[in-house]
């Protein structure tokens, strides 16, 4: 774990992953909320919950990836 190329590889893969990880959860959460809203006709409620869930999921993913390092 301490040898140089391995640490470099891990750090690099970490850096490249994080950004998309955050945004993808947000998109999925928002998308699910939006779809459910148009389906049930409760427009502002479910998308807000969905976006909140998406943000939390994104942050949680990032936190997990960091603590896995």
């Amino acid at each position, binding site marked *: 774990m301490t040898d140089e190329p391995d640490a470099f590889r891990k750090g*690099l*893969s970490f850096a490249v*992953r994080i950004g998309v*990880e955050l945004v*993808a959860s947000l*998109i999925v959460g928002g998308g699910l909320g939006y779809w459910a809203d148009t389906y049930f006709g409760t427009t502002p409620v479910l998308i807000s919950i969905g976006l909140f869930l998406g943000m939390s999921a994104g942050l949680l993913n990032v936190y997990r990836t960091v603590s896995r390092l």
Partner: protein
Amino acid sequence: MESNPLHPFELHPYGTLSLFGIDISLNKAVVMMWVVIALASWLLYRAGRERRLIPTRLQSLAELLVEFIKGMILDTMGEKGLRFFPFIATLFLFILFCNLLGLIPGSYTVTSQIVVTAAFALFVYAMSLVVGFALHGFRFLGILVPGGTPVLLLPLMVPIEIVSQLARPLSLAVRLFANMTAGHTILAVLFGMALSLPLWIGWAPFVFTIAINGLEVMIAVIQAYIFTILTCVYLGDAINLHGHAEGAH
């Protein structure tokens, strides 16, 4: 000279071809995938044909590659993951060759089409689900409950976990597609600048294209690596429920 930097990503079928009403016309991407498959299998076949004790250059390269992929699997999935070695190695080689061959001018980067990356990502994710349910049955749903969650938090944590699970194939597909598309678009823009500017300043973007091309080679390798290691991680989550892989961290 083409003014639209997104022009290289457009696909035009070579004539029309259909089988039982399904459109199977050939285009550059399809041909490029065949080239990738042919080249990768030919190289590895050449490398593994004669197993010498003192390896040839190609053979030692192939051995390095195999050791690298094996190390990746052991790191993320543990011993039990080794049965997925052929799948992981195929995936890695295919994406790597697609990315690298796409850098040759005039060829086509298959992985810059989101259809291709999404197909890969969905397949990988579906496979991890199938493996999880096959190994653990309905206990696999426990993946939605992170370890040590208080019961009061369950109504909050389970939806969050569902969203983060569903985000996996999306992030897998978008990452590879976006990186390849962005790199090639930058190259196209810089080349366009180099061609349309007068020579006394046009050399600057041209020099940049050379530097960016070097960067693109690195990105091609890294993105293939990331895609593969995330596949390993997802499959590993399915195999070792709650991450009790021996040797994993």
